[in-house]
């Protein structure tokens, strides 16, 4: 299985940017972050002691519709919680996140947005990191489908997602909290629990509490650990950015 590919800080005008291409779903999303930025037109909506997070999703080959507004709401509520909007320079300003879907099929009106939601979340995170926006923690996401026969499939393709009896998107923080759950379809709670377990291992690797209460990271099997993937992407980028310093040392 080919893992996703990502690159950081690819745009020159935006404060931070990232792109992520997910081979299984075919989505390629480009995200940009402008922060902190003055939002004079939203003055009445600004909060006095916190940054205002704005998310804008731009579909690739259709006009934005109600689905985009909905997914923007979800993204905003997740990101608002991890962004430290009270840090110096952020209150009364905006964190503007723009996500353009530049590859992959359009989400039709009324279709579920769950297929692309993990990619959108991941790109927002990378773009925020690229813009050096203070955050309390990072997170990683997983898309899982449960087939009619009850099997759990990871990163289902569009056709598989359509045929699945339920679809789940979960996001875990870097500290192991369940940040987001979006489940759709027909399922029972026990099924969801096994989905959660699987998602957790995909995002974070197998967490096996050691004897001293410490959490040791095991290997998540053949599934790439998303959390590790984000770390690697950022590390690679830092290496490139600081190559002058590393070389001279």
């Amino acid at each position: 299985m080919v893992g996703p590919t990502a690159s950081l800080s690819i745009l020159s005008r935006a404060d931070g940017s990232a792109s992520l291409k997910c081979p299984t779903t075919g989505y390629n999303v480009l995200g940009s972050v402008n922060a902190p930025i003055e939002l004079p037109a939203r003055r009445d909506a600004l909060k006095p002691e916190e940054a205002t997070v704005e998310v804008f999703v731009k579909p690739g080959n259709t006009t934005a519709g109600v689905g985009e507004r909905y997914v923007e709401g979800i993204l905003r509520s997740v990101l608002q919680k991890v962004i430290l909007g009270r840090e110096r320079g952020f209150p009364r300003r905006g964190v503007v996140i723009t996500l353009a879907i530049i590859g992959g099929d359009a989400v039709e009106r009324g279709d579920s947005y769950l297929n692309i939601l993990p990619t959108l979340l991941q790109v927002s995170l990378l773009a925020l990191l690229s813009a050096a926006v203070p955050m309390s923690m990072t997170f990683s996401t997983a898309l899982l489908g449960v087939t009619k026969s009850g099997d759990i499939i990871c990163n289902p393709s569009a056709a598989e997602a359509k045929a699945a009896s339920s679809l789940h998107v979960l996001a875990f923080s870097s500290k192991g909290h369940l940040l987001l759950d979006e489940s759709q379809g027909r399922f029972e709670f026990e099924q969801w629990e096994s989905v959660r377990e699987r998602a957790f291992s995909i995002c974070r690797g197998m967490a096996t509490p050691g004897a001293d209460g410490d959490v040791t990271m095991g290997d998540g099997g053949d599934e790439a650990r998303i959390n590790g993937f984000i770390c690697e992407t950022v590390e690679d980028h830092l290496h490139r950015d600081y190559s002058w310093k590393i070389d001279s040392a």
Partner: protein
Amino acid sequence: MRPATAKWPKMVQKKTFDRPRRDSSPRCAIRKMSKEAPLSVAEREFILEALRENVRLDGRGADQFRSLNLSFGDEYGHVKLQLGKTSIVVRISSEVTKPRDDRPFDGLFNINLELSAMGSPAWENGRSNELEAYVTHVLDSVIRRSNALDTESLCILKGVSCWSIRADVHILDYDGNLTDAACIAIMTGLQHFRRPDAVVRDGQVIVYGVEERVPVALNITHKPLSITFNAFNEGHNIIVDATRKEEQSSEGELVIGINNGGDVCFLSKFSGAPVDAMEVVTRSNVALEKVKEINAQVERVMQADLAKRAKKGMAEESRAENDR
């Protein structure tokens, strides 16, 4: 205060229900918001003074474009264009729809351009600004109204079904000359795009997937491009492909839409200081030269990409045969 009959700026949509509208805002705010941070007086003077000596900030000649870099995505009609630091992605898509009642023989073609905060922090998401309206107007005139894409060839079954072609322009980075860059990107996309083959059998339209039948190229009648000239120092200096800073210190703009054959399909002296009439004629020649140059480059890049695709397709086919 909002006026009682608030009109939200741009919402031309087909569906009457659940149409996505955005917050309306007073007109004055829009104008203010679309403005980039102004140049300092010193910076402006510097640019003008240098131009007086026929020097541009990046060392280009007056009639020289920045380096143009075109690449293609996985899908047909997915073009990434880089003109200096201006960066654009264009996606062309097609779907079968019903033709308009008054034009049963014509297909549909639309260009969608929306400026988002990605291109420049000065643009606000979900709000239209003057630049957006202006660029859309020029693109529409140069490409759509000049019938560069033959819409009649998009008809499948008279009055029943036709292709609707859609060009979505995403501005990733804005560093001046949006119009020309978008124009090149869209034209390249249209030439690169392949729609699925469709045939009519017993009144039933059958669309063949890309794997089954070789997809069809669009019928491009001519290849017009827009060339934007910016005037400085009372019309003494006229340059092409201005950067954002040059645009900001410019006193006037002249846009010429012209094709390889030298047919002018759009001409606009939209705003700013007057330009000598003779300049329009001489600049048309410059524009023609530029268009020929760019079209040749587009052709070269595109053929290389299509050849690469064909090779890859062939390799896949033989692999599939081997598997059998």
